[in-house]
């Protein structure tokens, strides 16, 4: 079993988690121009909700995901309605700060409801080790990578072909023009939050299954920033790729350099990347919105 292969395989696994979380960021940013600082907290909240559902209904993995996603989307909608919708028309910066406030509330609420002790959460998956080409994986790790692929495909198809997806791209391109052609910008914003919460649920559920369910999962939101930036803030699929790249870089730097490099390697990389391409690898050139 090759050391390098092991680093690459696990790097891709954690990269898939970053990718999923980053896609949630990018989706909201693309459609509403807001960086949702509460994305990590939504990931955490939905993971805990999945945990409660799993405990209450004893579901296996696939049904659990199918139940959790709609509930999470509903939560996304509710959060958008309560916290974001009333702020429409305010400076983007103010809305961004509102998401910071939301993050504080969600963090406290999660601990109030579920307590601060971490839990084991298998999400209905087996924990038997599977070997692929000699490299060991937990099923949850394989599911995580598969989930990233499926979500990327689904989002790509949605944005490319669905009526709402096209409306979303129209709003991203030019909000006023989209409004004039009869696109309901409000609906698009709500939809972006719903979808991003749905993705957050997938990310949260699988992250918790891989790395325990703990109230510090929200920190993964910040750790996913390099992925979002690398991909370009407004490129949803770019964010997924950015996640994989950051995951790989982190694991390789920890494996070969060590000394806590994992936690800052991603940040060093984005500084270097941004010096060359100030709009990320796949971002559009003219992002100026705050």
């Amino acid at each position: 079993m090759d050391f390098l292969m092991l680093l690459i395989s696990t790097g891709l696994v954690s990269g898939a988690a970053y990718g999923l979380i980053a896609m949630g960021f990018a989706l909201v940013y693309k459609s509403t121009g807001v960086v949702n600082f509460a994305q990590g907290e939504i990931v955490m909240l939905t993971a805990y909700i999945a945990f409660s559902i799993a405990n209450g209904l004893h579901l296996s993995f696939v049904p659990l995901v199918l139940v959790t996603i709609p509930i999470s989307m509903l939560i996304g909608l509710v959060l958008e309605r309560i916290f974001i919708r009333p702020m429409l028309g305010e400076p983007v910066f103010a809305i961004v700060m509102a998401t910071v406030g939301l993050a504080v509330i969600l963090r406290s609420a999660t601990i109030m409801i579920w307590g601060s002790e971490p839990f084991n959460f298998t999400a209905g998956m087996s924990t038997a080790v599977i070997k692929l080409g000699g490299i060991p994986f937990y099923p949850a790790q394989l599911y995580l990578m598969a989930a990233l692929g499926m979500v990327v495909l689904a989002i790509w198809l949605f944005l490319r072909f669905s009526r709402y997806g096209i409306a979303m791209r129209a709003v991203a391109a030019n909000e006023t023009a989209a409004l004039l052609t009869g696109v309901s910008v409000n609906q698009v914003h709500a939809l972006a939050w719903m979808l991003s919460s749905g993705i957050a649920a997938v990310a949260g559920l699988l992250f918790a299954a891989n790395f325990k369910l703990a109230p510090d999962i929200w920190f993964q939101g910040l750790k996913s920033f390099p992925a979002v930036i690398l991909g370009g803030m407004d490129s949803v699929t770019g964010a997924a790729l950015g996640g994989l790249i950051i995951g790989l870089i982190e694991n390789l730097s920890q494996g070969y350099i060590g000394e806590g490099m994992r936690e800052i390697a991603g940040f060093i990389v984005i500084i270097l990347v941004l010096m060359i391409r100030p709009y990320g690898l796949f971002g559009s050139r003219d992002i100026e919105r705050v």
Partner: protein
Amino acid sequence: MRTGHFKENPGQLVALSDSRVVWTWFAGMLCVMVLAPFLIGNYGLTLVVSSLIAIIGAVALNMLTGQTGLISLGQAGFLAVGAYSNALLLTDYHWPVWLTLPASGLIAALISLLVGIPSLRLKGLYLAITTLAFSFIISHVILYAEGVTHGPNGVFVKGATIFGYDVQKGVPLYYLVLGLTVATILAALNISRTRIGRAWMAIRDHDIAARVMGIDLVRYKLLAFAISSFFVGIAGALMSLQLRFVNVDVFALILSIEALAIIILGGLGSIAGAVLGAIFLSFLPETLRLFFSMFADEKSALFTDYVYEIRGAAYGVVIVLFLRFKPEGLIGVWKDARKYWSNWPLAY
């Protein structure tokens, strides 16, 4: 009732304020602040000192973010640089404190240039994330540069005396911090009236237009980074004096976010707003504590178990409510109140 306020010569336009009432109020405020240590207890004084330090930090961040439009999530990193510079110069190199304070500011300013140069091409959130990245890197460097920084052990700060007074606690610390706060506010007010301040605002409002007008973007953006970080560094140094101990855990990321929250809540771009925001957010936990202690007698299970988390959540709720109902910030509330007052009884 005043019918209007007219400026009749250029001098009045550039004056900090041409209103005698404002100056009188300012003097009155200052008088109260000077007497404050004798009016409030030690705990109150500690809180006031913390909030004054927060004011320096907020006013400094406001130069960068509010006036130049460069969003920074690196406040915690620059505070750490200032605090460590001060702590190490005082403790290991035995510099006098009147030298370490400006030196901390200068070191923070120099380091900010390191951040500023690669960030010059970046705007908005890209810049914010880059500064965030730098603040992670700074804490990593502090942790690993053990020979200089004592690494994970942290530093106990001692030996800060001015004229024989120990300026690390109580009244002397208060006067030192108060003096520097007033100086920072005056400096900020004055800078914003100079060519530099106006250049910053031009860059914030439209950088291309600013460039066309002949403003050197590189120069003024770097200047914004350096001047702002200078004051943030001093705020960090004061933090280290007050706490008397520094360690990387002191400068958690939450400080950067709180600093942004302060200037947003206060009213972005306004120095008075930054001051109000810093006061408001510094005293919010205390206010919430008082508010909740009114219900302390109810021994309901939920309450006793979750009082601390509820207090934490309430902090978020206040921020959200404020942004929702008063997006122009505390300075907006202040202006409304002033308008209401001067127009009374004929408001509207």
